[in-house]
């Protein structure tokens, strides 16, 4: 679609490139609606059909205080006292009330409008998410960027020494690093850096620039924990690229090995690498469950863990919804980045 229009009307300049892209983005965003509906349906089935609200009330209240009145009160407080998906007794005018005065509409469909309701402790989930996105990003973004850089550098180093003993041991090191549990990196890192060496505080968080001392260790651990898998993956991408004809041409011209790697291989290999990682970028908002809970960082990841441990279903539902939205945005960003990186790919 993109390429044909561009050929048909060359005089339109930049907008020919932009208009089909916009149409494509809009269409893709519309595709997202049924997917999000499906996500809501799945969470709805999980949370309300597999277990009725009565079951949840019974579990939350505990065995001792279960009386029919207590269950009714619990349900009414949280708005679970309506019918699940079809309200036959609704007094609405045009039949829509049959659908709107239900648990499904009030708890699941309202999330499309950014209304996530209240957590069990009475706080508004949407504002809580706004507050907690900052600390999450403060960890996730540096980890992501540094992790990408370090992994690419390490992979390039391995490729430079390819088919030697150094390469072999480097790959073995990567596999060994992949085989270590993520929990080990966190627990071991905290112990070594914070407890034995006393370089940084073990956990905690502060606002402003003082936050840096709390961020150094989690970011460092995050980079190390992801290094093995990504460096090995980038290495295979580089090795695939290095057998191409243009690399042979560059060598034939007399370019040095370093020049071949940096000027030719790296640039071309960045296309699959970047398009591969673009999908991850939106989900950085979600934060990291483990890192945040171990380091006591008040981000979205620790929010999710707390909600899971407290069995706060409203928060879990909201996080599922946000996660899905971000995932779909990631897919869209991937497709767009393909067209930007490689002119042969057209959006259809």
């Amino acid at each position, binding site marked *: 679609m993109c390429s044909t229009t561009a050929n048909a009307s060359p005089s339109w300049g930049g907008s020919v490139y932009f208009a089909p892209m916009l149409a494509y983005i809009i269409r893709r965003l519309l595709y997202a609606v049924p997917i999000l509906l499906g996500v809501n349906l799945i969470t709805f089935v999980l949370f309300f059909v597999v277990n009725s609200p009565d079951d949840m009330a019974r579990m939350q209240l505990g065995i001792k205080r279960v009386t029919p009145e207590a269950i009714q009160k619990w349900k009414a407080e949280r708005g679970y006292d309506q019918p699940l998906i079809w309200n036959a007794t609704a007094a609405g005018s045009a039949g829509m009330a049959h659908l709107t005065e239900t648990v499904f509409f009030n708890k699941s469909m309202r999330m499309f409008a950014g209304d996530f309701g209240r957590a069990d402790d009475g706080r508004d989930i949407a504002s809580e998410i706004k507050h907690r996105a900052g600390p999450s990003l403060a960890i996730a973004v540096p980890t992501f960027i540094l992790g990408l850089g370090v992994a690419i550098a390490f992979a390039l180093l391995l490729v430079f020494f390819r088919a030697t003993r150094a390469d072999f041991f480097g790959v073995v090191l990567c596999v060994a690093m992949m085989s270590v549990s993520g*929990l080990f990196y966190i627990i071991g890192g905290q112990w070594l850096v914070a407890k034995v060496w006393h370089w940084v505080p073990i956990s905690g968080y502060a606002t402003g620039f003082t936050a840096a001392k709390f961020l150094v260790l989690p970011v460092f651990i995050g980079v190390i924990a992801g290094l093995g898998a990504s460096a090995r993956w980038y290495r295979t991408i580089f090795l695939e690229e290095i057998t191409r004809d243009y690399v042979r041409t560059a060598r034939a011209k007399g370019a040095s090995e370093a020049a071949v790697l940096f000027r030719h291989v790296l640039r071309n290999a960045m296309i699959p690498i970047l398009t591969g990682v673009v999908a991850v970028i939106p989900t950085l908002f979600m934060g990291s469950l483990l890192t945040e809970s171990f380091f006591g960082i008040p981000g979205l990841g620790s929010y999710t863990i707390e909600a899971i441990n407290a069995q706060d279903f409203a928060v879990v539902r909201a996080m599922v919804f946000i996660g899905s939205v971000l995932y779909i945005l990631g897919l869209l960003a991937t497709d767009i980045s393909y067209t930007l990186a490689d002119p042969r790919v057209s959006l259809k």
Partner: protein
Amino acid sequence: MMSLPFQVVVLWSDALFFGLVTAVVMLGMWARRQAPLRHSWARVASDKVAMVSATVLAAFLFVGVLDSLHYRARLDAAPGQAVAQKINYAVEVNSLLDVLLAPLRLHPEKTYSAPLATHLFSKEPLPGSIERGFPRLTWGGAHLGYALEHRTIDIVQRSALGAAGGLLLWLGLMSVMRLRFKRQGQAIESAQKPGAGEATMSQGGRAINALLAVADGDAARKSSRRVASHATLLTLLVLFLIMGVTMALGSGYHVLGTDKVGQDVLYLSLKSIRTGLLIGTLTTLVMLPVAVLLGILAGYLGGWVDDVIQYAYTTLNSIPGVLLIAAAVLMMQVVIDTHPDWFVTSAERADARLLALCLILGMTSWTGLARLLRGETLKLRELEFVQAARAFGVSHFAIMQRHILPNLMHIVLIALVMDFSGLVLAEAVLSYVGVGVDPATISFGTMINAARMELARDPMVWWSLAAAFTFMFILVLAANLLTDAVRDAFDPRTAA
């Protein structure tokens, strides 16, 4: 009335686990008859690293199988009763591994004790004295009596004895294998003409060669590749030595110390193996049929079927994995809690939760494989042999079964072995988050979770975490290394 002194208990997970092992064995026998598969496996078998990993994995599998043979002991009749009219069985479900490790299981200490220690780790009021000190362990080093200065000598003696035992066992196994496969060995020998003048190692090596050669049929003989049997034998030797030393020391000490409630850490680590293996294998058992069926259907039929299946996996994929699992596990927990009458023993309840976890992990992880298979089927569908089959009027089902599926098997195999290590690691994380296995189930995750604050203690307690992480690391590393070899051998792009 005569009856067994125990009642065999087959938990659901045991049945599925053994079913899976049988299925793998049968698949292996089928693969023996397929020339290309035989060739690929011979390639794996010639890789030293792969054979070491496979041997280590086999040892883990052996522990897992021992731990999957469950029974309930018969309770002795009460003294007043003449003859028990009704035979009662203990509520506790034990496995064969529990019997073998009975010395470890039945001798708990009061609380923490360091590896090979003779005293508790924390000071407590000593009996018959007002002072506080480190009390003696009730079992660890109890045989020393008051001659504590002999502890080092005792440990060295026991280690040496154990190592000697392990060595003897290994030599015994080798000579049995040598006798058993002497004839095949000679046949191979004449075909392969190995270098002369090698010691026992080589003879044992030949025995393994013969064993594998029989399994591989002609492939090992015809291809110039030799099975990396020395690597296997050396690994076996190391495993036997470790086993011997551990057993010798374990009869008098807590080799890896005890945890907060005084349980032996070595026992916990060995019990965790079964949980890890089950999660790594049963999940793929759940996932496999769904992924293969939907992937092939979507790729082959196209049209609205493709649309529906793609919609299904995009939707499932878009939910963050941990959250979907957490949500499903929380819900399952409510179901289990509200129906306590479904389960006779607590072991059955823990087992149900383990299976449900596998089911949930399977239902959330089939999407990746299905997408891969769909893409590959799209390519295969346009190839000449499929087109020809269609022109001959072969039914869609037959084409999918006969022409598409066999050509996807390498992807399925690679995906299976790749998923295993990821799942073992995921179990630890999920148990930490609180949505993993039942807290009563011994697993690496529950061990780590229980020990998470121990490094912060002063002086710190490191052995629980170290044991859990080391066992998990070895298991996952072996799986990862084997995966690499399998992928190299089966991936058409890298297979020579």
